[in-house]
């Protein structure tokens, strides 16, 4: 399998509303982050990837399963069997015990009952819920509920996990633990993860590839490292002496001054190929002294917001 997801100009409309427009994606198996604000088309894309709906135009393949306007839509059970979905909502069944809930998920994925029960015990143990497995779901804490939801996603050992806001509602410690788990599942056990989130830090922590959706279109796609290269290189400078002259000299060299003050604190954005030594080279001619040069790279979050604003 070369590509996990191979979509060619996929479109999906609901009445007059265009949810996805000419989405072309080619993603290899791995840890993929799906970013986008509300209404960007993430949910529609997830439904398409799970075989819950068919596209209205275009075609593609998900895990070698054909997606086309004439596809099976919700009836593509074979595709869903290969995917474990962790919903954002609680989606628990009150009254059931943890082990019953996970084994029920196993049975729904097609495992025979005995196997589903055995597997439920294994997965709960793996996720550190072995002592809580006989508790009713109402008694679980938020962190435990998230892990339980991950357990029901893993029970049938799918090659792909589709995670909708996996760290939603977690405290920092639980969030770190969840991200570590996800990273381990992807890195050590070869699971492909598709993480739909608006928390960019989660994507940075777990994912290798990222897709940015905006207004139903793909605005950015590539590896996290590649996208990070598109970040604007920024620096914080501390200048002493002729502040205004140094600013003019920077601008003459096509350096964008994002902010500065009378104390000589500059925030600047430089073009590709700029060398740090050039900051020092400008100083003698303007009667200034460079006291400090600190990197201040754009975060993925800032880059995402910049992409959103450009859109």
């Amino acid at each position: 399998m070369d590509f996990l997801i191979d979509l060619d100009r996929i479109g999906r409309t609901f009445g007059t509303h265009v949810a996805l427009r000419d989405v072309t994606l080619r993603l290899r198996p791995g840890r993929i982050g799906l970013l986008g604000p509300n209404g960007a088309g993430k949910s529609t894309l997830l439904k398409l990837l799970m075989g819950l709906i068919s596209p209205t135009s275009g075609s593609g393949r998900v895990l070698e399963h054909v997606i086309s306007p004439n596809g099976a839509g919700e009836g593509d059970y074979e595709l869903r069997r290969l995917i474990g979905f962790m919903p954002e909502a609680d989606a628990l069944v009150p009254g059931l015990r943890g082990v019953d809930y996970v084994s029920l998920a196993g049975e729904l994925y097609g495992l025979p009952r005995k196997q589903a029960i055995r597997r439920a015990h294994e997965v709960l143990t793996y996720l550190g819920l072995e002592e809580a497995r006989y508790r009713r779901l109402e008694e679980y804490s938020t962190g435990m509920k998230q892990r339980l939801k991950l357990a029901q996603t893993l029970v049938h050992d799918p090659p792909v996990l589709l995670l909708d806001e996996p760290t939603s509602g977690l405290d920092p410690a639980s969030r770190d633990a969840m991200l570590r788990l996800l990273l381990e599942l992807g890195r050590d056990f070869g699971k492909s993860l598709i993480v739909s989130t608006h928390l960019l830090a989660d994507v940075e922590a777990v994912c290798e590839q990222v897709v940015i959706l905006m207004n139903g279109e793909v605005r950015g796609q590539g590896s996290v490292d590649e996208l990070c290269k598109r970040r604007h290189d920024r620096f914080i400078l501390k200048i002493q002496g002729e502040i205004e002259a140094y600013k003019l000299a920077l601008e003459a060299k096509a350096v964008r001054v994002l902010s500065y003050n009378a104390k000589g604190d500059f925030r600047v954005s430089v073009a590709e190929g700029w060398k740090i030594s050039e900051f020092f080279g400008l100083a003698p001619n303007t009667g200034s002294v460079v006291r400090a040069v600190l990197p201040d790279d754009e975060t993925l979050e800032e880059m995402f917001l910049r992409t959103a604003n450009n859109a």
Partner: protein
Amino acid sequence: MSRPAPSPHLLRYRTLNTARRGPWFGSVAIARSSLQLLAGRKMFWTLYIFSLLIFLLYFFGQYLQVFLEQRVSESLVRTGGVFGRTIRPDFFVNMLRDTLRMNGTADTYGDFMWTEGYIVMVLLAFAGSAIVGNDFRFNSLPFYLSKPIGRRHYLVGKALAIAVLVNAMTTIPGLCLYVEYGFIDTWEYYKNSTRLLFGILAYGAALTITLTLLLLVTATWLRRTVPLIMVWTAAFVMSRLVQRWLVDGLGLSPRWRLLDIWNDMYLFGQWCFGTNHLLLRPGNQIQPEYREATAVIVVVCLVCVWYLSRRVRAVEVVQ
């Protein structure tokens, strides 16, 4: 001798290679887990015991009727002062056979299933929120629908759980009574009363399908137990009072009795048992035609199916 410490790798994630089964097995799993949810409630067992008591009343009532009729030849039996000094077996035979109709006839099974109906109604009102309502109330549906099953598999699973409940309290005990009467009467009974067997199965099927659909609809609509009980009560108790007031009180057409869905199912059952319309009990109540009652049941079921398909289709798996 101390055992070696287990390797931490034993707790590591293990891959799985197993053949997967079709989505209809998922329906069975849904039904089983729904019944499991219900079995954990004391209310369920309390009501089920009441239902068993009604069954046992009929079971031993039939036995006593046949025993007294066939085995006790004396006209007076001395009881050692328990029921006075003597009892008259023919009094009990008449009561069991003619008044309570515990004599293996259509009336026996019709009355039994009618009586069980009260318990079934109360039980379903409580079960509705646990089996179906909570899935909508606590947003559990994405859990089911994100799996390789369709919406119809989910509905069939839930319906199966309700059907098991209804049948466990009506059709199966009804069949037990039928089998029992054949044993205590003569083998000819089975040969001569195949229509009764058909009637039990058909009446049970009507109860199962109609009550299952009605419960699914009311539970998905109301979700909580108390409103569900109120609407359920209105549907089965108030409608009966209203139809009686309209027909017996105001003298309107007997067709107004069609408002009472439980009565409609009873009429359908009697039709299946082959009971003459003129001999329906109680004799002083004129009932609508069998066909009309059946038509009402069919319409109610179709409306329920239409509502359910719309309601479940509206659920978003990914929100």
